[in-house]
């Protein structure tokens, strides 16, 4: 295979004394969709943040087309074509929907291109067009998520990092989002790194997958292969035998004092 566009080696990141990712290595190849699965607190968000530069890793390297980018200011990373659609929306609450979208294109100089991309986003999410003047902070949760995704698209990135894009979206929109992701990847060759709790749909869209547990990569492989693996099925796809159900139920326990 060719040289990966994004190559991460032995990455370690801390929150003060707490080690959140512990030597993660992974590769993303041009034109691929790569997904990272992992339980709550596995370090997926931390990984994404370290790549996009909002956190500094303590050890390890992040290489973009061979060039080390770890520890750069986040805006420099964006200008290299890496755009992060973060967990938890992070919109600009007091700016209008349209201004939010315009900010997504901050690094781009072409006026006409921006205008046509805004129209593109509006065609994906017509509700945003309807609300183009509304303060983004008063949108509903799902509408904000649409805005965050649309804003990410505005940068015309080479690589997109998606942290739980389906969060709070209606089933219909989840499907649409993933259709958009697939389309961008297919038509515009945008490379994607995708974190998603909805593992089924993520593996469906992805070419390749990694499993992150307690800050370490514990499994990797082609998406189809992963989807077929027993562990993945049990822990991430929710396929399990009925028997386990009862054990996990809460029982009134004796309380210590």
């Amino acid at each position: 295979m060719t040289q990966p566009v994004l190559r991460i080696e032995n990455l370690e990141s801390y929150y003060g004394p707490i080690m959140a990712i512990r030597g993660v290595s992974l590769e993303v190849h041009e034109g691929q969709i790569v997904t990272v699965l992992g339980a709550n607190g596995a370090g997926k968000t931390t990984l994404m943040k370290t790549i996009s530069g909002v956190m500094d890793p303590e050890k390890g390297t992040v290489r973009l087309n061979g060039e080390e980018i770890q520890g750069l200011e986040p805006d420099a990373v964006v200008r290299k074509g890496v755009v992060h659609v973060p967990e938890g929306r992070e919109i600009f609450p007091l700016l209008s929907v349209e201004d939010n979208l315009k900010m997504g294109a901050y690094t781009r100089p072409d006026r006409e291109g921006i205008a046509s991309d805004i129209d593109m986003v509006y065609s994906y999410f017509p509700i945003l067009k309807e609300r183009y003047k509304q303060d983004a902070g008063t949108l509903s949760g799902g509408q904000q998520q649409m805005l965050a995704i649309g804003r990410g698209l505005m940068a015309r990135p080479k690589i997109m990092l998606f942290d739980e894009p389906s969060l709070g979206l209606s089933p219909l929109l989840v499907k649409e989002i993933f259709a958009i992701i697939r389309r961008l990847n297919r038509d515009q060759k945008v490379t994607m790194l995708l974190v998603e709790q909805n593992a089924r749909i993520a593996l469906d869209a992805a070419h390749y997958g990694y499993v992150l547990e307690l800050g370490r990569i514990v499994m990797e492989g082609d998406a189809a292969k992963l989807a077929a693996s027993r562990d993945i099925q049990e822990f991430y796809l929710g396929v399990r035998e009925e028997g386990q159900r009862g054990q996990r139920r809460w029982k009134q326990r004796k309380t210590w004092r």
Partner: protein
Amino acid sequence: MRIVFKRSYEADIRLFKHGAQAFWYGLLLAAAMALPFLLGDFMVGEATNVLIWAVGGLGLMLLVGQSGQASLGHAAFLAIGAYACVLLQTLLNVPFILAFPLSGIITGLVGALFALPVTRLHGIYLAIATLAVSVMMEDVIVLSEPLTGGVNGLFAPDIEIFGIGFNRYSNPAGLYWLVLGICVLLVIGYRNILRSPLGRAFAAVRDSEISAQAMGINVAATKALAFGLSTAITGLGGALMGHFASVFNHETFNIVISINLLLMIVIGGLGSIHGAFLGAMVIGLLPQAIAFSRDHLTATFGLDSIAIPGLEAGVFGLILIGFILFEPYGIYGRWLKIRTYLELFPFYRRDMFRRQKSYLKTERIR
């Protein structure tokens, strides 16, 4: 690192986390009590001054650190405390032992009364509104001349409790112990509030007013109560400050004092009782330290420090800048890091306390 085994709910409720902590605080108190035997009158006076500032700071800390409301006008409440305490004694012949707590209560009531209409204010709005109160207080004092003595101010009588005089110059050690005792009582009360539902309500209001409401907390009442308690403590500090200064007028408690009070608790470390005391040490001792080093330098190098007027204020500002840049979480924050370092030794990591990139969000969304 010490691991505390919690065997009962008490473990989280009691004043000291474990025996060793109780021991260290006991030792600290003993050392504080022994101070007058170790130091001369001059230093004892300075120590008393630091403790008085700490009392005023404790009040502001409760407001800013615990309930998240910033005040740039607490000097006004120092003033109310000072005037109330002295007037109670001189006009109504109330003995100090009663006048002192009463002055706190009066200040607290005024504070709560002020807070009620403005509980919807936040951040900078509240800060500037309190600043306005501080500015207006000066005029109120001047205008209430028959009571306050106007611009000529008031003379504070010597503190006398059961016939024992606590004059600042004739009985410096006594005054010091008195103030120390008041500090200890206030700290215990402060701690009691922190470990009870009210303390949690303060924290709730500070972190998210919306959730606080959803938890059934009356945000306006809680904020007003925080204001009342805070100003009550600050009023006590003011009463002590008034007696310590022995004469004061409307200029004694001006805006600069308000600002210093806020400086103090931020530099000490917001949200912790320690912070109030550490901050008071900086604000109280730093000017003297600067003055002594200046005298020392002047003497050694034959320089002429008087040639640069305002040098102390400038150096003071520079050192404050240094403090804030060095540790935005205040001295107490730094101390916690040092302690963790010592406890973990030698298993610490070099970059453990390196400042992580951090990001702010707007406060204009409430």
